[in-house]
């Protein structure tokens, strides 16, 4: 006789848990970050991006860093970009490489992911509460647009970056080696 025991999986995951307190929100976010964080691997965005922010602070904090008319990259823009990077990191599947962090002459910061010349995505971040994005997904076509981002809380930011995270993930479809990274 076989004994069959029904096993139901009641694990609470990041996707199905809605925090109601500040502590809960922080915990959920930490949970999501840990899910993606693999130190020393391609998944490990934060040290790479932090180093890039250091370069921006050194090189671009005065007007004119990129010739006449170029505007300084402010601490405020770096702080917002940092929040956006951390939010995206929690939202995208693990194994996706860190973006290139590029200063822009209008004082904004561009996050750029590129697979090859036909597959890339740029997200530009400023102090105005919006992101602008443009990309190409091979033969599937191109996208570009803008959307508001809510930086008032980590959860609000996560919500407003859902679409952007999907675009990033679309550039890097799951492959065995990436899942194992």
């Amino acid at each position: 006789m076989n004994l069959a025991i029904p096993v139901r999986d009641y694990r609470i995951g990041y996707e199905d848990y809605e925090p109601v307190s500040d502590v809960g929100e922080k915990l959920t976010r930490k949970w999501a970050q840990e899910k993606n964080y693999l130190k020393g691997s391609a998944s490990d965005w934060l040290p790479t991006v932090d180093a890039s922010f250091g370069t921006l602070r050194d090189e671009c904090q005065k007007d004119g860093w990129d010739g006449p008319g170029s505007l300084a990259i402010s601490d405020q823009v770096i702080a917002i970009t940092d929040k956006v990077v951390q939010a995206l990191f929690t939202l995208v599947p693990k194994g996706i490489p860190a973006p290139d962090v590029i200063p822009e002459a209008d004082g904004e910061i561009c996050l750029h992911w590129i697979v090859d010349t036909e597959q890339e995505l740029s997200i530009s971040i400023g102090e105005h509460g919006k992101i602008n994005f443009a990309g190409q997904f091979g033969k599937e076509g191109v996208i570009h647009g803008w959307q508001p981002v809510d930086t008032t809380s980590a959860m609000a930011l996560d919500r407003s970056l859902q679409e952007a995270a999907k675009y990033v993930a679309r550039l890097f479809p799951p492959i065995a080696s990436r899942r194992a990274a």
Partner: protein
Amino acid sequence: MWQGYSRQLPAGVQPEELLTSFVVLPEQVDKKTNTIKPTRLMPRRNLTNKRLETSVCRSSRLTEAQVWEICSTHFDVHSRKPAIGRGVGPAAAIFAEELAFDADGKPYPEHANIIGWYDDIKKPDSELKHVWMDRARKMAKKFSYMPRT
């Protein structure tokens, strides 16, 4: 010594001409493709006439030494650091995006501005930028990076 100001250039930029965009930071270069990042070709708003412009150098008829002479004289002096290299691409890539040139020849004869960028005075730049990003993205992949010599 370079005697650049006697050179003759066609009044209008021709599709087969090569253009140079000076690069200040390694972050403005895509190492995977050895092209410049799209940010390098994004327009800036001219404070005088409010027009959107991307500054380039018409470099087809210049030697490498002449290009860097122009860079030293007209670009490096305004930047925090000297340029580390340049992106070089065909004018045809700009025409392909339905943009145009104002070959103003100022402050040096080979200077031109890429113009014709999408604009809408009713909207803030923060809601137009994505259109410029799309154009710049397509053009940038035609601009190969060459380090300074």
